[in-house]
């Protein structure tokens, strides 16, 4: 069977819409009939990464690839990049400003959560150019 490909554009200027793409993929995976725990892992990881894209990097693009064996998601942005990825991966590390915190984000738990719920995770980042976050979740 050929992989199903999905694509979403994430606007960077509207926090209220952040997470729309994750909601769409979640409902799509449900329709296809993946197990609830697999869907939940993909949804949480993608939601965290999508929110990061909006609050730290002015939005971007998301590509997903779905096969019966695994679901892979790549999120690309052209934001400021991450100076120290190891540091960013630590629980509690956040550069989020107060206005983001007052919206319920900035605990420094997003990237660690993505790592926790996925079977594979990669971050490529270039300062001043942008960040690509890739992850996959095995479906079997």
């Amino acid at each position, binding site marked *: 069977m050929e992989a199903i490909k999905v694509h979403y554009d994430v606007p960077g200027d509207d926090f209220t819409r952040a997470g729309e793409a994750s*909601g769409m993929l*979640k409902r799509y995976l449900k329709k296809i009939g993946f197990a609830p725990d697999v869907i939940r892992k993909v949804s949480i990881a993608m939601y*965290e990464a999508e929110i990061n894209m909006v609050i730290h990097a002015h939005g971007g693009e998301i590509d997903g690839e779905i096969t019966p064996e695994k679901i892979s998601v790549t999120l690309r942005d052209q934001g400021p990049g991450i100076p120290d990825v190891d540091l960013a991966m630590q629980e509690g590390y956040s550069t989020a400003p107060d206005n983001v915190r007052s*919206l*319920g*984000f900035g605990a420094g*738990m997003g990237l660690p*959560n993505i790592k926790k719920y996925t079977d594979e995770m990669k971050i490529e980042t270039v300062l001043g150019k942008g960040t690509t976050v890739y992850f996959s979740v095995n479906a079997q």
Partner: protein
Amino acid sequence: MTIADIIRILNAQIICGEDHLDTELHSACGADMMSDVLAFVKDQSVLLTGLVNPQVVRTADMMDMRCIVFVRGKEPDDMVVDLAKEREIVLLKTPLRMFTACGLLYESGLRGGCEK
């Protein structure tokens, strides 16, 4: 515990989701940081929070939670209510503060599901 029980215990008002009052809830989570909610998956079915932005509904949706309780009488706007209706998530509001609301539910037998 059902959503109807929560309404009684917290002296809560229903904002939307009248059709789901007999939904069974197994555990709860109280937080104002959404990534803290997302960090522990243990079939929590109700989220208590002092925030009222759309990300609260999206977070609950990602976690398959069935009910959100806004504490301190916070009132979400129409956009948030519409999103919750679309995702079939029940919204409640209580005048109680977070600590008291969580305490009353705990006392009535609801547990965190987040404890390690």
